[in-house]
Every structure is written in C-alpha cells, then in structure tokens.
C-alpha cells in the first residue's frame, strides 16, 4: 500500500517527476539472524494479523514449512531446509520475504506509472491503485517474491509494514519475534549488528558465517546473518542476485532503439512522399 506521509525516491514507469523525496531520511532495514531463529512462525502470524490477510489453504508435504512458497496473501514465510553438513543434520530456517532492494528489479520491470515505488527510506512498495497486474515484476525480481492475486488482479508482497514504519513503529514481524533474531532500525545500525553477530559466530565454530547484503542489487533492506555464509543457496538465496539481464536489455537498450526506429520509419514515409510523391497513372498530354 502506498503511504503518502513518506516521500518517494523512485517510481516505476515515470518519465519525470517520480521522485518527490526532499527530506533526507535514513535507509531502514530488517535484521534477520538465521542462527537464532527457532522456526516458531510468530512473525508469519503477526504479518497475517497486522495486514489482515486471510489464511491460505495448503497441504502437508512432510515439512514444517507453512506454504510451499510465498503467496499473494502470505508475505512472510519461514523456509525450512534440511541439509547434511559434515555428517550432521542442519535444520536451516530463513525468513523469506521481499528484500527491499536498493536497486529493485520489480520497479525497473514495472510498466505502470507509480505502481511500484521506493520511498525515501528505501522501502519498496506496490501501490495497488496503479498496479495493472501484468506480472512483469515477477520477472524483474531476483528473489521470486511478487505474487499475482487472482482476487484483486494485482500484485502483492511485503510492504515492510510501511504503514507502521511511517508512524514510528517497528514492522509487525519484528515486534512478534520471541528470540530477538529479528531487529529493525537504520540500515547502518542493522549492518553493524549483523557484522558483530557474524564475528561472534566466526569465533564459535562457524568460520564461514557471513552477512547477506548482496551488492548486485545495491544492497537489500533485509540483512541476513547466515551461519553457512559461503552457501546462501542452502537458504534459498541467490549467491549473486542482480536485476535480470533480459529486463535491463529490454528497458535500457531495446526500448529506446525501438522508439527511434518506429519514429524513423514514420519520418521515412514522410521523406519518401516529399521526395517522390505519388505513383499514379497519368494520361499522356
């Protein structure tokens, strides 16, 4: 949902005038520590409750995971992955949600003016007033997050509780977390918190621990502490996510060339007519 008390830094499909941000706001971020997540799903429930999202039907497939994947009516999913590491079983849990990229592929792919906005504090949000439900953002997102809602004909995803954040509250999921594995604050503070936790993990048997804040998308609004930081794919995260090449080629190369080519063809016909005129049978004088 679009919250107008926050200013807009970037707006989809806007030629000029999309950015309204005048005030300097610090970037905000969620901090997720996978090493202290206990998979209680309190964040899932808090998300559903605060956003008034109805339960989504599912079926048991032999996992603790609530749904196989995110849904238009389910924006915060704890993923459970089992993995054998050095002969022992690791039960990896990760909070799957919109990553609120600094360079959002969804926003870049979106064709509807103002349907996806990035606020001055870095939150990336879908504005359903303007969304046309085309699904281009699904292709633009390197994290497979936006979902099409058959009910509304529009896209839906985590808003980073922009309605709460804009009035000085922390997101619902953060408030519900019982272990302190979730925190919310400025991006700077969350990176500092994450780096400290990574140092702690490295000193305690996780030499490969790392903070996941991928620079391929300019960093994300969700910074994640990974015990096995050398294997983000174990947690369902791309090793080096970036705005898809196809989307960049389409928007930045093919589109301007196409516009010039089409207008060129149009001007060409005018030039032809001015140069050669009509082809017509004329009686000999």
């Amino acid at each position: 949902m679009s919250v107008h008390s926050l200013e807009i830094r970037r707006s989809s499909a806007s030629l000029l005038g999309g950015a309204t941000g005048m005030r300097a706001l610090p970037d905000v971020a969620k901090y997720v520590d996978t090493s202290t997540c206990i998979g209680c799903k309190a964040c899932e429930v808090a998300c559903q409750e605060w956003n008034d999202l109805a339960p989504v039907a599912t079926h048991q497939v032999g996992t603790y995971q609530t749904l196989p994947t995110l849904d238009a009516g389910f924006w915060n999913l704890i993923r459970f992955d089992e993995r054998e590491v050095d002969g022992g079983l690791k039960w990896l849990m990760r909070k799957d949600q919109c990553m609120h990229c600094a360079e959002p592929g969804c926003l870049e792919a979106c064709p509807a003016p103002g349907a996806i906005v990035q606020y001055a504090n870095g939150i990336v949000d879908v504005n359903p007033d303007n969304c046309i439900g085309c699904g281009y953002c699904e292709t633009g997102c390197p994290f497979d997050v936006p979902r099409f809602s058959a009910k509304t004909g529009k896209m839906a995803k985590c808003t980073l509780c922009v309605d709460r954040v804009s009035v000085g509250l922390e997101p619902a999921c953060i408030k519900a977390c019982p272990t302190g594995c979730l925190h919310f604050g400025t991006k700077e503070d969350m990176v500092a918190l994450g780096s400290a936790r990574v140092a702690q993990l490295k000193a305690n048997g996780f030499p490969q621990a790392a903070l996941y804040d991928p620079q391929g998308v300019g960093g994300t609004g969700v910074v994640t502490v990974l015990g096995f930081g050398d294997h983000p794919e174990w947690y369902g995260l791309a090793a080096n996510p970036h705005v898809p090449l196809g989307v960049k080629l389409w928007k930045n190369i093919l589109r301007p060339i196409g516009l010039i080519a089409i207008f060129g063809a149009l001007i060409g016909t005018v030039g032809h007519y001015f140069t050669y005129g009509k082809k017509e049978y004329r009686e000999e004088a």
Partner: protein
Amino acid sequence: MSVASLDTHGADVAVTAGRDREDIVVGGEIVRHRRSSRFIHFAVAATFIVCLLTGLPIWTPFFTWMATLFGGLSFCRWLHPWAGIFFAVSSLVMFVHWAGQMTFEPGEKSWLSPKRLMSYLEYRDDNTDVGKYNPGQKLQFWCAILAAVGLLASGVVMWFPASFPQIVRELSILLHSLTFILFVMLITWHVYLGTAAEPGTFHSMTRGTVTKAWARLHHPKWYRQVMGLEK
C-alpha cells in the same frame, strides 16, 4: 465509381460480382479483392490496431496517454492479450486464405535485391513481370505471419509468467518487443504505400476494385492475364 458499373436497376455490378469472385473485369473496372479477402485483411488490421493501442502504453510511459482511449491502463492490460488472440486467429485465417497466392515464383527473389527495391521505391521500376502480388507484398505477407507467430508465442508466456521459467520469460519479453518493433516499422510503410503513395490501392481493399490504368501501372502481368492478353 464509374457509371458503367451500375446496371439498369442501379445495382453496383462490380461490388456484387466481387462478393465471391476476383480477377475479373466488370463494368470497366477490375475486381482485385473479393469480399472475403477484404474482410480477412481488415480483421487482421483491426485486431492489430487494438493490440497496438493497448500495448504501446504498457510498453513505455511515453504512450501512457493512449490508455485513456480504452479507459485506463488496467483495461488495456486486460484487453491486450484477448485482442492478441483475435489477431492470431485472424492471421491464421489470412494465412490459409492467401498462402497459395503468396508463394514466390522462380526469379521473383531477384526483385527483392536492394537495387531493385530502391528502383521500386523511386518509381523507376518498369514492373513488366509483376503479377497480382509483387514480391515485396509477398514478403510483407510472410513477415506478418511470422510476426503473428512470434507475438503469440511470446505473448502467451507474458500472459502467464508464473507458469514459465525465468529465462523463458526474459526471452519472451525481448522477443515480443523486438517482433513488435520490426512489425510496426513494416506496417507503417505498408499503410503508407497502400494509401498516400499509391492512389487507388486502398480502394482495392474497401470496394474491392481497381481501374485498368491502376492494374497496368502496378501489376502489368496480372493486368494482361485478367484482360485475356496473356495466359
């Protein structure tokens, strides 16, 4: 319309003859496109124009204003794929209708050389060997069929993105853009040549008839065949 094309009751003999027959001389005119040919041509044209006007505002905000013609971008997004289905179906019917007449005959490919095409565009080509359709028109036909296939295949993927893998979606978006850009350039010239540049040509697609002078100028071989001067 010449007076000669009316019978004593005032019926338009060229139009009535052109319901089911073409390549015939009626009342001083030649029927070039029978009724079904004209219907199918404009079915493709109309569905394409709806696709174009609903697609351009989704392609770039430069054309957002066009969405107003249809009541907004959301309706464009709904209408575009359905109009695309009708465009594809119309193109299929057009293919069945015209494919036989649009096959290239031996020697015709040389007409498509840059030199010959330029002399055609500069009105310096003598056209003596040009039959009912010149090789440029045949090429236009096959490009239209190819474009319909490319736009349909990529469009279906873009319609249901969640059902296709990421790489297929990206390639489809690029293919849809590229095909449409090339096709719009082609159609711009097709419409220009068929209207402003060649008086009488648009007439053949509405009323179905052309004058003998038009036929002799643009399609001399076809003219000789219709007039019974050549087999």
